[in-house]
């Protein structure tokens, strides 16, 4: 895997199946968890604990149709659909469908 792919995450990985995902409620095909985790973790030192939360985790959540109003089992998640967690999960999927969003902005303004 290229260094760029390691750095830029799913949108530059060899597995481009995320492009077939549908944002807006319908379940789509998701990249495999293994492919996603491999993509994110790259060549990390196995002795160093690394984040267990990856796009793959988000994909699992999205497999519950998180983007379809009312479809996600909010009781099981125990948070509202406009909670910080749900909005974060939604954003990561939208970002995966819109590669090119990853440029940084000025911190001294909001």
């Amino acid at each position, binding site marked *: 895997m290229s260094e760029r792919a390691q750095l830029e995450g799913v949108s530059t990985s060899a597995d481009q199946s995320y492009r077939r995902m549908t944002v807006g409620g319908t379940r789509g095909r998701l990249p495999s968890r293994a492919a996603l985790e491999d993509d994110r973790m790259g060549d990390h030192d196995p002795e160093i604990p690394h984040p267990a*939360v990856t796009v793959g985790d988000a994909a699992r959540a999205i497999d519950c149709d998180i983007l379809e109003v009312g479809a996600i089992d909010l009781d099981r998640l125990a948070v509202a659909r406009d909670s910080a967690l749900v909005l974060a999960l939604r954003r990561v999927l939208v970002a995966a469908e819109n590669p090119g969003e*990853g440029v940084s902005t000025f911190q001294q303004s909001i």
Partner: protein
Amino acid sequence: MKGGAPLSRAHTPIRQFVLKVHSRCNLACDYCYVYRMADQGWRVRPLLMSGHTVRLAADRIREHAVRHGLSQVAIVLHGGEPLLAGAGYLDRLAATLRQLLAPVSVTLSVQSNGVLLDAALLDVLAEHGVRVAVSLDGDQPAHDQHRRHADGRGSYAEVERGLLLLGTARYRHLFGGLLATVDLAADPVATYRSLLRFGPPRLDFLLPLGNWTSPPPGRPADPASTPYADWLAAIFDQWYSAEHRETDLRMFTEIMHLLLGGESQLESLGLAPRAIAVIETDGTLEHLDALKSAFPGAATTGLRLADSSMDDLLAQPLSVEWRAGLAGLAPTCQTCAVRNTCGGGFYPHRYRAGNGFRNPSVYCPDLFALIHHIRARLVQDIGRLG
């Protein structure tokens, strides 16, 4: 922001332009990087960006957008205090920028201290769709501790008046959010609640400027001590646990997004390429202006709008380093467990006299602790979905 060809890290075009429309301020905040730190370049700059310089800036931005196929750019009006330019100036400025940049679409915003916000100014900003963000550090005692007039008077009462006006139905759609600088002496949750009082759609807490040579207030040398992480984690727990989201807290949403595998849109986190240019009142092009906190001239490029393009800025060694991603980090950061999330932290925080910026952030222990705190909460909650 959308538009243009797919990203190549080394050739990422500039999409956000910071226009220093006024080089002076009506406040004398004790932590200001423009006036109170190493670089005093403001002393020799014109007060106001001239019409000629505004037109040059618009031409250069348009040239860059067209060359790189960008359909949209963002322009932040900054200072000093940009509202010192006055309603008439801002009216002409916004109209000129939109006219000269067409067909490139422009998102305009202003970052203000809020003291001068009144109906006349807000009407002009509304007419041009200029989003308004305000710097506010918390409740009155916390805010007035640092954000004072030159004669020592606190500014909270004036900012409060402006924010209450901005929050009315007529102007609410312009409200971009609040920026607060962390003060360890203030209660974190009380600070967060006092900011929520104004209903900001977005909020962020900035770590005070400092570096290894001039450490930030309250940041001890002992890496086991994490006072800033502790302060921010208290707010994260409140914010994250709210039944419904109270506001978008930028630092936390960016960290969560990075932990979930996304790319940050904030220069102080993650490894996404920086895509920002700063244009001073005299038409000089600069790097990130907070670099001025490190040493005099740290943000200087030697480039001027009159004879340099935005691509010339991208070719500067510092710009290249900012686009290098992992390779641009200090060696210890490159093997760190949280490297993709932290991204080495805010660039000015990495400085040490003698070896420059190739260091971890002076806030390294705090960033590490805060990221792990947020990650633990995410793992716990997402685990319940399994």
